């Protein structure tokens, strides 16, 4: 099969813009080489012999081509303390706002969705214990949800390998995990008991409504996969699951937010987050 001509600068720009508009993923100059590679790979797999025909396929999302394309760019690996700057934002800024004028009896509720194999909700638990001065003053409820029940089962088990723990200091691992054989560690029972895991499909309103209202929601790198109509529904669901004034943190490493106009943009030192407005007056 003849090699297709290399994709031109202009063609890469048009493709990047299209993907940005559809998914929110940003392909900066630094990623151009990888985009070029991905285009060539996908053209070979789909049998397209020109950029024009491949782009037409992508624009029409034939056989889910958009997801096929962006899969190469999404980091599916999860580990403890990933996107630490958002955890910083949580304890430095978000919880301060959420606990202003709040009775101590009112539990702080945090949602990690999708939670995958549990690294994110357990990270939140560890982070709060290690970094939040008021961790003893409030009851804290952490919920981890995912559409995939297999990963939820693994999450509840709380067993992790070396890669998942790579960002944690040996001291943290020593204090919060018990070593098992074969380079695995299990997080302590008390931490496992601190997180409740539930199966949830973000697009199903009847399901999301069962989870109640949260002070902070972490919803990273899943909205980019939704089509526009589903994304609107998911965003409305997430809005309902926030208490007035509550915050939502999206993944920022690869994509600009695709959150809807329902939320206000709040820029803190460590992160950009989105906020459900406080109760309006009258």
């Amino acid at each position, binding site marked *: 099969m003849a090699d297709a001509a290399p994709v031109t600068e202009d063609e890469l*720009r*048009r493709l990047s*813009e299209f993907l*940005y*508009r559809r998914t929110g993923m940003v392909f900066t100059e630094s990623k151009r080489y990888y985009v070029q590679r991905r285009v060539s790979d996908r053209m070979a797999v789909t049998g397209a012999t020109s950029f024009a025909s491949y782009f037409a396929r992508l624009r029409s999302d034939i056989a889910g081509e958009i997801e096929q394309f962006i899969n190469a760019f999404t980091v599916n690996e999860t580990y403890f303390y990933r996107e630490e700057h958002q955890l910083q934002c949580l304890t430095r800024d978000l919880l301060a706002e959420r606990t202003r004028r709040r009775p101590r009896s009112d539990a702080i509720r945090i949602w990690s969705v999708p939670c995958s194999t549990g690294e994110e909700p357990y990270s939140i638990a560890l982070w709060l214990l290690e970094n939040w001065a008021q961790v003893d003053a409030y009851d804290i409820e952490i919920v981890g949800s995912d559409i995939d029940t297999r990963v939820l089962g693994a999450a509840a088990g709380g067993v992790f390998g070396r890669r998942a723990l790579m960002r944690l200091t040996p001291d943290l691992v020593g204090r919060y995990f018990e070593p098992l054989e074969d380079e695995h560690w299990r997080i302590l029972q008390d931490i496992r008991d601190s997180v409740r895991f539930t199966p949830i499909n973000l697009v199903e309103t009847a399901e999301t409504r069962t989870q109640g209202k949260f002070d902070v929601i972490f919803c990273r790198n899943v909205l980019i996969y939704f089509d526009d109509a589903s994304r609107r529904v998911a965003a409305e669901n997430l809005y309902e699951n926030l208490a007035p004034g509550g915050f939502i943190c999206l993944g*920022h490493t690869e994509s*600009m*937010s695709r*959150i*809807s*106009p329902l939320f*206000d*943009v709040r*820029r803190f030192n460590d992160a*950009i987050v989105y906020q459900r407005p406080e109760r309006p007056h009258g």
Partner: protein
Amino acid sequence: MVDAAGKRVLVIDDANLVRRYYRDALERAGFEVEEALNGLEALEKLQDAVTDLLIVDVNMPQMDGFTFLKALRRQDLPVAAIPALVISTEAGAQDRDAARMAGGNFYLVKPVSQELLIEHVSMLCGIGP
């Protein structure tokens, strides 16, 4: 000829040919250019490097130019005060007023020539002729 001395301009417009046209003029005049496709992206981008001027379109998906400006001006941060040149298709007096009330500093009606653009950008950046 303008000496832009590395002033940075953020162009906020969903039309890629408009952004290219402005970029072409601005870079030739020595300005550094960043782009955003709508108000939401602009709010996110403004966390990064220092920006000296915003060029703001009005009709954009997700977040229009006026909503963006109001959200920006509300913030308790230095970025809130960046001057904004609003460039829109709408020519009525009420649109100019709306732009001013949203926090725009100057208003031009599309289509704008490159000369007119540079003239106003320079003025708003405080660069002499």
